[in-house]
């Protein structure tokens, strides 16, 4: 198939960017979206132009690196996929495809489609851990039974890949789904209880500091999340936060 691509080009964080049109031809429907981008980049390199910078790594939907906003949707029109898992069979010959970086104040553009997600890192550093040193003398893993239900729910929350699609999708650029998933994983497990109060308070404070918006419960984040992280995690974080506030 032949396609027209409208792609955001921006030299660096300080320079103003703009949409630029490109044409690609003979794209196979079996290609992944990123392989289509490879074809374009090979074309650009061969003609002496600078290829389009985009983040990608594992190309199997788990690293959370790829971050394209395609035709107005995070990771494009398919559901439950990252951009590397989006296939060209979702498009038709002659289509025009618009490709932008994640748009959020807390994710400044580094170059073209690459954004800076350090705000996510700082939120995790504020409390997304259990303070246990490595010793080889922690208690035996089976001395702490955890109900299968709680373990499965914690796992569902823990599958978040930290890509930022939730933020890019949200009209308020809220990070509540991302932070809610991490708070939930620990809130659901007995190991997470000891530091529960400080964790939720510190992570929420850092989230606010980074300039993410508020949650207005539209639920778009859940729909666009490549891993299907549920809105329940936001509710659980709110409960945890309220509990923590009451405890002082």
């Amino acid at each position, binding site marked *: 198939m032949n396609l027209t691509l409208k792609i955001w080009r921006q*030299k660096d964080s300080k320079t103003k960017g703009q949409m630029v049109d490109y044409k690609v031809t003979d794209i*196979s429907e*079996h*290609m*992944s979206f990123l*392989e289509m981008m*490879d*074809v374009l980049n090979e074309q*650009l*390199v061969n003609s002496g*132009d*600078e*290829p389009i910078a985009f*983040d*990608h*790594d*594992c*190309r*199997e*939907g*788990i*690293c959370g*690196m790829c971050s394209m906003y395609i035709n107005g949707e995070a990771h494009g029109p*398919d559901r439950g996929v990252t951009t590397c*898992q989006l*296939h060209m069979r979702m498009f038709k010959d002659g289509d025009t495809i618009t490709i932008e970086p994640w748009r959020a104040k807390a994710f400044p553009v*580094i*170059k073209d489609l*690459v954004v*800076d*997600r350090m705000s*996510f*890192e700082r939120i*995790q*550093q*504020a409390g997304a*851990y*259990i*303070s*246990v*040193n*490595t010793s*080889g003398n*922690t*208690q035996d*893993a*089976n001395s702490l*039974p*955890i*109900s*299968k239900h709680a*373990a*499965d729910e*914690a*796992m569902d929350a823990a599958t978040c890949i*930290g890509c930022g699609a939730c933020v890019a999708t949200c009209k308020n650029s809220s990070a509540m789904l991302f932070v809610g998933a991490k708070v939930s*994983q*620990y809130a659901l497990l007995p*190991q*997470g209880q000891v530091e529960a109060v400080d964790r939720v308070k510190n992570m929420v404070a850092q989230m606010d500091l980074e300039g993410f918006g508020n949650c207005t419960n539209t639920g778009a984040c859940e729909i666009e999340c490549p891993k299907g992280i549920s809105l329940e995690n936001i509710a659980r974080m709110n409960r945890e936060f309220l509990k923590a506030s009451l405890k002082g």
Partner: protein
Amino acid sequence: MSVLDSKVPKGPIKDKWSNYKDHINLVNPANKRNIDVIVVGTGLAGGSAAATLAELGYNVKAFAYQDSPRRAHSIAAQGGINAAKNYQGDGDSTYRLFYDTVKGGDYRSREANVYRLAEVSANIIDQCVAQGVPFARDYGGLLDNRSFGGVLVSRTFYAKGQTGQQLLLGAYSAMNRQIARGKIEMFNRHEMLDVVLVDGKARGIITRNLITGEIERHSAHAVVIGTGGYGNVYFLSTNAMGSNATAAWKIHKKGAFFANPCYTQIHPTCIPRSGDYQSKLTLMSESLRNDGRIWVPAKIEDAKAIQQGKLKPTQIAEADRDYYLERRYPAFGNLVPRDVASRAAKERCDAGFGVNATGEAVYLDFAAAINRYGKEQAKIQGISNPSEAKVYELGQAIVEAKYGNLFQMYEKIVDENPYKTPMMIYPATHYTMGGVWVDYNLMTTVPGLYCIGEANFSDHGANRLGASALMQGLADGYFVLPYTIGDYLSDDIRTGKIPTDTPEFDEVEKAVKDKIDFFLNNDGTKSVDHFHKRLGKVMWEKVGMSRNAKGLTEAMAEIKAIREEFWKEVKVPGSGNEMNLELEKAGRVADFLELGELFAKDALVREESCGGHFREESAETDGPQKGEAKRNDKDFAFVSAWEYKGEPADAILHKEELEFNDIELKQRSYK
């Protein structure tokens, strides 16, 4: 006398590690504050090492080329992690895990290291649970296990099909705690481009800031490399796009010996290539082979018709199918180890029986499993004389519960429903057992330079068993390196900060900058990928699943020729003082073009078949094992450790003889 000293402690194997730990030098907590350690790579090995060293009190500088430590490719590991917990009461023990790992590695690993790995495996599970890793549990709330290929017990711990992700997020959380405390200084989007030696000791690295292009100097008292394997030398592999061998290769060029490069794991259950644009291959967990039956058409005319799209697999009668693994290996059937399954698929496809347009695919069929589970469910639910449709429906539900996420992933990529038509699979490069040579302390042949995880060669011999990579990465990072490095650093308590304004740093930084300038000014005619793909094609065809002297000799010459052309013709657009992805790739491919040649040379020298390395000249000629791999313990029970001497072809071979005192060497038979 070899220049290699493995430093394996004396004494009975089961006491070696604990005795050793009791007697090595320690650094007192106050002095640790004055010691810096660089850790390059933040996967399971690098991430766990960085966190643990920081907990101990060292000042850690950690480096990742991704925008977060959490994105290292350990994240993609699916199946699980082995540990000798014996929670299932099925007779597992440290010795059994040790034995299975040495046997699975085709008796080409170092006994003492493997025993230690088995010994600390149980601690890993305890540590990860304490961190909040949500492993799968049974209804009683205790940890669940599954079983993996090549072993007779159930010792694999898992978190759905995302075990690597959860373990890495555990190590990442431990890192975050130390980053918040200021004990780890984290350098995201930084790539190590060389190591700096001062008086023969590793004392720093030169990095490039991948956002600004700035070349930076970082010093430390010791340098730890945990940058993963070199599978991307094949261009197509299950590695991440950015996975590279640059750190490992650069330290090799500065004196670290490179061991057993020819030991590569080609994983049998990957989604086949669909066209020339293919950028990487996707693995599907080997657990699929528990229920899937592998076959190709028995008649060549059927295979041809399928390749041309004129026939569908479901139209081929049972009698006209060749379940070649069940035919050749009645005892293990579809559950033979990875290397055996991969070679058997290649053999059938080379003979013309492949089943997609490229002729490079075999079927993995779940119809029998769906039928079996369906009948079982009908009985459980008390449905007498269920219709075929009902049996199918019930069976499909069971298969979906077990492998749903994998089936979904397959359907997304291939656009075929694997419940209705057999999956197509083909082997792909997955893991490299070879790597930087290290002694028992995980130190390379350069003092103060350590190598951990997949990047070193140590524990898997010639073939790695499923669910053992995660175990080794975390064992090295959490429980081995943090002890052994102290023994070395105890001599450095009075050294003071290592300055970076010295001739040694000047010299290495200049060489790094010169190379970058060369790429940017070369003004060639071909892209980096052009060369990478050509290298990959030679590697796959002549240094792939099956190798012979003629092909390997040709490969060495061809890789050299590609390398020479690369330096003349490579084209890198853009500038050095900005984010430049083509420049990053150019440096990595330049290193692969050298490593590939040494790889072929190593394969040429090893005139035996063992594990992932199959030499066509070394196969059984008669008896029940006819055609199977023939190992040669008399002449090849050694580790090949290569010393860099300029051109890869001039590398000098040093042998570390392997001694087996606790395990008897046997032929691996899966008949």
